[in-house]
């Protein structure tokens, strides 16, 4: 800290839940420019030629004294998070359940989606945002089910962001009280950092990938609200322990709910569909002005969803 003016970092104190406020409050106290704390971009002038240490130890050179420090205090993901909040409002106002499905490439996300749509489409409108670097192969597979789908090609990008989803929604125009399934770019790292405005993040782990993945890619499992272990029909042929995978995931995210399914054989699919239907009931009931009618609708569809699964 500067002993002349009191400015500087290194004063960050973490005080329980308030993770950011202490840093911003302590970081920029400045005797001759207290207003710097009040306005974004307000000037924090170092007019006096006092040699001093900058926040991180770099020297504010008094000889060149022209450098001014401007307080910013903005989240790097702030813009994404603002758009995600807008998406979340969009979904909430329409009683739409939005799920962000994330996994490595080849975990069976699209197969899981296709089977999910087949199980639900007669009762619940479903729309899909497909994220891939290139091609519309996945959106084509989804459209073949009859569901609406928009393909987002990220080009060199490794993840979907909230802005891409907002633009996709403008094209997709999902129905009220529908389910929007967002299939993120196949990648167990980058998508975890970006809020899209979804209600829940679902991470899909296939048994061919190894039960230690949660430990190797903790950010993804830390961000997840549900883990779906897919391809369990292959368990006899691979060294994968479901118990170990779940235990590893819960080392990263205590209490993380987990389901085991095979999108190919249908094993365990009833539990997955029941989970989706439960989330959707919550989304419909949370809609502003949701009345008895929508509750009845949701309840009816919950029954229908269960029936669809039990018939498999």
């Amino acid at each position, binding site marked *: 800290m500067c002993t002349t003016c009191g400015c500087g*970092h*290194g004063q*960050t104190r*973490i005080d*329980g*839940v308030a*993770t*950011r406020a202490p*840093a911003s409050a302590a*970081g*920029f106290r400045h005797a001759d420019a207290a207003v710097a704390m009040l306005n*974004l*971009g307000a*000037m*924090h002038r170092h007019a006096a030629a006092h040699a001093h240490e*900058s*926040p*991180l*130890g*770099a020297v*504010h050179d008094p000889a*060149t004294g*022209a*450098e*001014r*420090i*401007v*307080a*910013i*205090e*903005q*989240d*790097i*993901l*702030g*813009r*994404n998070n603002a758009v995600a909040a807008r998406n979340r409002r969009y979904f909430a106002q329409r009683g739409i359940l939005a799920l962000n499905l994330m996994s490595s490439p080849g975990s069976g996300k699209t197969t899981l989606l296709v089977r999910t749509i087949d199980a639900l489409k007669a009762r619940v409108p479903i729309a899909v945002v497909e994220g891939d670097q290139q091609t519309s192969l996945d959106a084509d597979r989804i459209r073949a089910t009859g569901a609406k789908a928009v393909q987002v090609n990220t080009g060199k*990008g*490794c*993840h979907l*962001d909230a802005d891409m989803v907002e633009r996709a929604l403008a094209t997709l125009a999902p129905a009220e009280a529908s389910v929007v399934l967002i299939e993120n770019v196949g990648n167990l*790292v*980058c998508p*975890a*950092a*970006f809020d899209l405005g979804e209600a829940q993040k679902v991470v899909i782990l296939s048994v061919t990938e190894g039960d230690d993945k949660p*430990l190797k890619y*903790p*950010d993804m499992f*830390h961000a997840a609200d549900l883990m779906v272990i897919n391809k369990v029909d292959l368990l006899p042929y691979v060294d994968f322990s479901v118990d170990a995978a779940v235990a590893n995931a*819960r*080392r*990263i995210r*205590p209490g993380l709910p987990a389901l085991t399914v095979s999108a190919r054989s249908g094993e365990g699919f009833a539990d997955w569909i029941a989970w989706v239907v439960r989330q959707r009931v919550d989304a419909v009931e949370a809609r502003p002005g949701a009345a008895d009618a929508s509750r009845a609708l949701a309840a009816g569809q919950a029954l229908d969803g269960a029936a669809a699964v039990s018939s498999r």
Partner: protein
Amino acid sequence: MHEVALAEGMMRIVADAAARCEAARVSTVWVELGALAHVEPQALRFCFDAVARGTVAEGAALEILTTPGVAWCMPCGTQVALARLGDACPECGSHQLQVLAGEEMRVKEIGIA
């Protein structure tokens, strides 16, 4: 390599602030990265240098302040330090930990000329 997207986010914040201040040049950018934040600092440096090229922040020094990870240990009922996701409570060895701090990614301030 989502650090490209993060660097672009940083650059937008820095450019906006520099424009508000009518700065000719940004000499230093201070960012705060939590120890548990979803970012690789070296990759962020590389990407920031790349996205800053041709902008008001070209060649700016990137100063990274790492803030510690903090979790609430449920069995201990207290706050503990957490260096990495997946680590156990240093007191009791439990993984029943809820992250309280250390996921920050913020532009703190910039030095302008």
